[in-house]
Each structure stands twice: as C-alpha cells, then as structure tokens.
C-alpha cells in the first residue's frame, strides 16, 4: 500500500497551494477589484463567516446530487447491461442514446420545471439525465469487449446467460464501471447546480445566482470552491472504493516480480 504522504501527494498539494498563492499575489500586485476577481483569502473568509447560512444549501445540493447520481447509476447499469449483452440491442439502441446524450441539458431543465415545478425534483432529474450516459457506455463497452475465451470457460460447463453475465461479464466490467462512476459523479454535480441556478430557491446553484445578482462576488466564488471541494471529495470516495474492488485490474504499479 502507498503511504499517506508520499512525494507525489506532496507535489500535488504544493501545486494547489502555489495556485492559490499565485492568485492572491497576482490580485494584490495588480490591484484587481474584488468585484471582478476576489482574492482567495477573501473567498475563504466569506465561506467561513457565512457557513451557517451556506450549510443547508450545501446539504441540499449534496442530497440532490446523490439521489440523481444513485438513480443515474441504477438506470445506467440496467441499460448498459441490456445493451452490452446483445449485439442487436447495442446496435439498435446506440443512435437513440447518442441523440439523448447530445442534447444540451440546459435545454432540458425548463421542460422538467414545466412538468414538476421548480425545486428538488427537476434538479434530481437533471443530475440523473446528465450522469447516466457515461455509465451506460462504459458498462455496455465492458460487456461487449469481454473476451469470448473467458465466456467459453463457463459456456462449456453449460452455464446460462445469466450465470455468464454474473460470473464473467459484470466482474470484468467493474474497472470500466468505476472509471465511469468517477466521471458521472462530477457530471451529477453539474446537473444539480445547473437546475438550481435556473429553477430553485435552495442549493449552492441558487446561492451563487442570488449572490451574483447582488454583486457579492466573494460569495459566488465561495460557492464555486464548495462545489469543487464536494466534487473532489466524492471523486476520492469512489477512487478508494475502486481500488478496493478492482485492484486486480491495476496491478501494474505495485507488482514487480512473480
């Protein structure tokens, strides 16, 4: 196992610190107005001062995202499995899916609002509709590219299609699945915030909209930082799960000799 603080992590951390320091110094030297670009120190100060107000919105956005994401994963895995198992289904359904995924999701939000009113429901649906596609594609690709030799092992034993899917197809697809989860969870945030900025009175997206109309620029940036932080946190969570579940697929680094 890797150490918690190795060189690589120190470098990544250093880069982040350098980025904020550069930003801070740049603003100070150029005399940038905080109406245009506030200094990170101002942003962090605002974030901590206003935390009691921000906290419910953070929870709202997080909850909405996680519900949308969970539904997206369920739908994505189901569709991906259906499409990936059968070549006919794969070729039949693919154009339709591409069509759906190429629709800009901003354009869909008003429709969801029309159907379900403003608030949590359209935000969940937007998160869902934006995050399920990478999961479908990855599950379907993982299943469709399963080596026939691996399946033959079970076929020769007289295994049913379901046995093969369960024992070969799905485990083989896990690395693809987790790769897509990490992407999908960040997409889900995009969906939620998008919907909140358009049609909601709660959530970080709404906070940022309100703050920007009041020219409270540090607050807008505080919202951004919070979103980035939550995105990174969820990414880390899924990376950790991934490395536990699909360690077999990532043996290149920590295995030297047989």
């Amino acid at each position: 196992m890797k150490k918690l603080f190795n060189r690589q992590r120190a470098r990544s951390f250093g880069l982040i610190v350098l980025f904020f320091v550069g930003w801070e110094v740049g603003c100070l030297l150029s005399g940038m107005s905080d109406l245009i670009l506030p200094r990170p120190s101002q942003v962090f100060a605002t974030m901590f001062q206003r935390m009691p107000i921000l906290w419910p919105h953070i929870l709202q956005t997080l909850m909405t995202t996680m519900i949308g994401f969970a539904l997206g994963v369920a739908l994505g895995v189901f569709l991906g499995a259906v499409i990936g198992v059968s070549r006919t289904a794969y070729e039949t359904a693919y154009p339709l899916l591409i069509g759906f995924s190429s629709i800009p999701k901003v354009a869909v939000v008003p429709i969801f609002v029309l159907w379900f009113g403003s608030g949590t429901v359209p935000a969940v649906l937007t998160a869902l509709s934006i995050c399920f596609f990478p999961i479908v594609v990855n599950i379907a690709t993982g299943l469709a590219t399963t080596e026939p030799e691996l399946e033959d092992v079970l076929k020769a034993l007289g295994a049913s299609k379901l046995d093969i899917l369960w024992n070969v197809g799905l485990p083989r697809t896990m690395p693809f699945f987790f790769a897509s989860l990490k992407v999908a969870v960040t997409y889900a945030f995009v969906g939620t915030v998008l919907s909140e900025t358009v049609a909601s009175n709660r959530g970080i997206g709404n906070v940022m909209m309100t703050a920007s109309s009041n020219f409270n620029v540090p607050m807008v940036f505080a919202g951004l930082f919070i979103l980035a932080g939550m995105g990174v946190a969820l990414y880390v969570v899924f990376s950790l799960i991934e490395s536990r579940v699909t360690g077999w697929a990532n043996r290149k680094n920590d295995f030297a000799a047989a």
Partner: protein
Amino acid sequence: MTIAATLAPSAELPAGNLTEPPAGRPVPAVELSRVSVTFGQAGDSVAALAETNLRIHEGEFLALVGPSGCGKSTILRLVGGLIQPTEGVVILGGREVAARALRIGMAFQNPTMLPWLTIEQNIMLPLKIVEPFRSQFRKEKRGAFRDKAHDLLAQVGLKGFAGKFPWQLSGGMLQRANLCRALIHEPRMLMLDEPFGALDQFTREELWAIMQKMWLAHKPTVLLVTHDLREAAFLGTRICVMSARPGRIVDDAPVTFPRPRTIAMTFEPEFVALNQRLRSLIVEARSGAPAPEETP
C-alpha cells in the same frame, strides 16, 4: 483423493436416451454424424469442417492431429457445445449435445483464468455452475469444495498457490491450474484443446505424465486436440488425422503401446516410426494431395 479419483467412472449413461442405440452395441460417448460447420454469412463463408463422421467410445483417449486451421478445434468446440453444427448432428452420451447429458471438463491452450479471482476461486468456478455442486456451493465453498481444490492443486505441484491471483503465476503454473479447473467437477468427458501447447518441453512432459496417471485410474473419455505428434502418441489410445480446411478425418488408427508409457519410450524405434507416419500424413494433408485411405 487422487486426481484420478475426481473423475467419475464414465460407465453409466444418463437415463432417457433420445436416440436408443441398436441392441447389443454400446452407445459411443460422442458421435458426430455427417457434421459440417461453415462460418460466416452466405457468399463470404468459410467451410471449417466438411461432412465428418466420428465416434469416440467410453473411456477412449482420442488424440486429434492435423495441419493448423484444419478444424480440430472446431470438432472440440462442437462436442463442448460452444458452437452448433451447420449440418448434421452431434450426439453426446446418447443425447443431442445441447441437452447437456454429460458433465464436460474443458481446458484450452490459453489458461483463461478469470483475473479477478484467486487461483482457488478460479478452480472452484465449475462447482459454482454445475449441478449437483451448485446447490451446495454456498455451504461448501469454505469446506469440502475448498479441500478438493487444494488437493488438486497439490497434485499438480501448486501447493501454496491457492490464494494467489492468476497474474502472479507463470504460464506453466496457470496451465496446471487450468487442468485442475477442468477436473474439479468430476467430468465424464474431458475436452483438451492444445492445453500444453504454450509450455516448455519439460513442463509439457511432466504434465503428460500427470494426465496419463489421471486417465489410467478412471478412464474418462478424452478428446485431445494437439499439434504435437509425440504428445498424441504418448497420451492417445487412438489418433485421428485431419486434412487441411475444410477438415475431414483422413486417418484413424489405434495406438497400442503398453501403459503406463514413459518419456523414454517416445525415443524407441516403433514410437518414432509412428510419429513419422503421422508426420507424413499431415504433410500430405497440408499440400492438399489426396491422403491414402488406411484402415487400421
């Protein structure tokens, strides 16, 4: 338990045969009648196997040799139920192959261990799929089944590797594990598709000896596809030679060397003569010249 003991004696046949044999004649373990296989769509099709008739009897160790691409593996995959014949019927233990009358164990040249499972879990995989083991799998996977897997591993010289992942083993080790997986569910019929093909000479000979020992003890029906003529003559009770594509069987002869055969025997004159005869048959088959009909 020995390796041999894991192979159930293949004497009894499943009840309810669909095609009753004429009285007085035993049902062959495998029967291909007028089977041909064509791959691809019409217009762009490749004939892999021309009208082939083949019978394999209970307890026989049939080695199938021939030039590469002649349809040896196609026959094996037909019998294993992995592909369907374009024409003709494949009958296994008195039933059409799709009916799964016999438990089949299979091993390919590529060991195809599932990379996300440990060696032990890989070997126990057939038990998870095939009845009657399947229904006990949950209960026995840490008990009897696991002991069984460990026993088999010990016999092929892989003691202590049960918990390793496939990528931690060498090719030869994987192939040993592959044999264990083909045997663990006590198959009555063993299909081997060049299982020793990718191994070095010495490992190969060692595995031949293990294979022979196992076969001698309980005489399962074995179909071995190989391009190694020494291997065919060392292991087989009968050797079939196939012609170039589309394949058909051009020679079918028993191998009568006494058992147990030893590696030293493979250098004796009669053995070498058999090899040379097989070799010239295959050379002819490759060049497409009509092979001489020989009745053993």
